[in-house]
């Protein structure tokens, strides 16, 4: 039968071939019980979680949970409304205040997800005849923000400062320019040379938006991200972030010092035409953000975990996405999808969950086993994880 779904036939075929080989479906895992930020029962097995982006382990923090319960009792389960109509409660104000304090910035705007924050801000600020210059390895939410708007889209090779500069220089005189970068690129776990890139962007008269989703809470002296770490946060016009990683709940945001920023609340469609976050979610987020301001010990332990895992995997002979650990993401490069899925399943049977990442999400058509560490992983757990990688890697012939 031929209909609108026929275009998905090659993907359906690829999936069927993969599952016919007997591996568990890597994209259909169910966690039956979550025991802590680092342990869950998956498909009936107790499993160490190494692919959750729960960098700071805030999901089971007692203060965070209590704040959520109190908000449920006092404000109900949902707002049933847009932020600009009946959907702004005290908690939404409080989480925006927490963000302003966390980043030491004048304005904060909270969206229902991080995806919507990129979608909304990018599509709204860059209009027809403006140019968006962006890294080719940008997250899907950035690309979708470009697609939703009407601007001219000009990508450049990943982290290539010269390629970015050439494109900025060729933009016609008088056109508005927005450069979109990420602090940490989530597939390989590498960081951007923001200091040099932002200097070039500014020299060419562009505004700069940086997505710091994977750095908030643990990179930079105050956990504000890679731009802070490289001393250029004051040059960034818009920081995009999320509550679904270090903050440990769900939601997205943009912080900015732009004097006219508040007008975004009226013109940004993915902000206006959707329901606001439930009161319990903004209450947990606000509590978590305030606790992250004082998380320096946890940050230090997270970095130690990242260094130990990176060095251990390298010593075992795995091919990694970066030469040195640059973030809390460590990408293990697999030879192809079939063997990557085999290794993923072998790890799951050992009791370890990692993300299987595949094209089109990955750069250069790579298959990756992506590990993201948590500040709540103990040093012993990291050693256990390494032993699991060694056994699974040998069993599947990856090492």
């Amino acid at each position, binding site marked *: 039968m031929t209909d609108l779904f026929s275009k998905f036939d090659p993907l359906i075929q690829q999936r069927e071939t993969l599952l016919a080989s007997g591996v568990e479906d890597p994209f259909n895992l169910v966690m039956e019980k979550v025991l802590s930020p680092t342990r869950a029962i998956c498909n009936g097995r107790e499993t160490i979680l190494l692919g959750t982006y729960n960098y700071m382990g805030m999901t089971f923090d007692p203060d965070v949970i209590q704040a959520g319960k109190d908000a449920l009792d006092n404000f109900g389960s949902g707002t049933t409304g847009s932020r600009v109509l009946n959907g702004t409660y005290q908690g939404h104000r409080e989480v925006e205040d927490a963000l302003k304090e966390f980043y030491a910035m004048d304005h904060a705007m909270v969206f229902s997800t991080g995806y919507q924050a990129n979608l909304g801000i990018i599509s709204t600020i860059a209009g027809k005849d403006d140019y968006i210059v962006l890294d080719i390895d940008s997250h899907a939410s950035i690309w979708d923000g470009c697609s939703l708007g009407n601007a*001219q889209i000009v990508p450049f090779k990943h982290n290539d400062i010269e390629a970015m500069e050439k494109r900025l220089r060729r933009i016609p005189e008088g056109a508005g320019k927005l450069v979109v970068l990420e602090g940490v690129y989530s597939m390989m776990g590498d960081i951007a040379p923001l200091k040099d890139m932002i200097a070039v962007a500014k020299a060419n008269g562009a505004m700069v938006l940086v997505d710091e989703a994977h750095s908030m809470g643990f990179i930079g002296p105050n956990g504000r991200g890679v731009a802070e770490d490289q001393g250029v946060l004051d040059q960034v016009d818009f920081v995009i972030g999320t509550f679904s990683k270090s903050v440990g709940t769900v939601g997205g945001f943009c912080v900015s010092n732009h004097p006219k920023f508040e007008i975004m609340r009226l013109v940004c469609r993915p902000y206006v035409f959707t329901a606001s976050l439930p009161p319990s979610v903004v209450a947990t987020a606000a509590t978590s953000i305030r606790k992250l301001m004082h998380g320096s010990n946890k940050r230090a332990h997270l970095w130690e975990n990242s260094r130990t895992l990176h060095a251990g995997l390298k010593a075992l002979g795995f091919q990694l996405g970066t030469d040195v650990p640059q973030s809390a993401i460590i990408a293990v490069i697999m030879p192809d999808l079939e063997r990557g899925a085999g290794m993923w399943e072998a790890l799951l049977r050992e009791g370890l969950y990692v993300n299987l990442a595949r094209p089109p999400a990955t750069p250069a058509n790579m298959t990756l086993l992506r590990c993201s560490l948590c500040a709540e992983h103990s040093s012993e757990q990291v050693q256990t994880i390494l032993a699991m990688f060694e056994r699974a890697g040998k069993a599947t012939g990856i090492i």
Partner: protein
Amino acid sequence: MDRAQTDTRIRGLIEPFNKKGVAIDDTTTFAGDLEFDSLTVMDFVAAIEDEFDIIISMNQQAEIENYGQLVDAVCKLQGD
């Protein structure tokens, strides 16, 4: 630069990307005949942009399906 000169220079640039040595005329398509994937497109577009000192935005790329349309677009962008 006239269309013939532009054509010659683009033919030189496309060579390393034309792995199967497909014979190229104005109707040759990039996705179909030349089997360019998204990464190849990015590298090929960057090579053309650098050679002619122009920008071909993704919005413009979406309108270019075959070789002849590319030569026309580069001629036009140089004139702008």
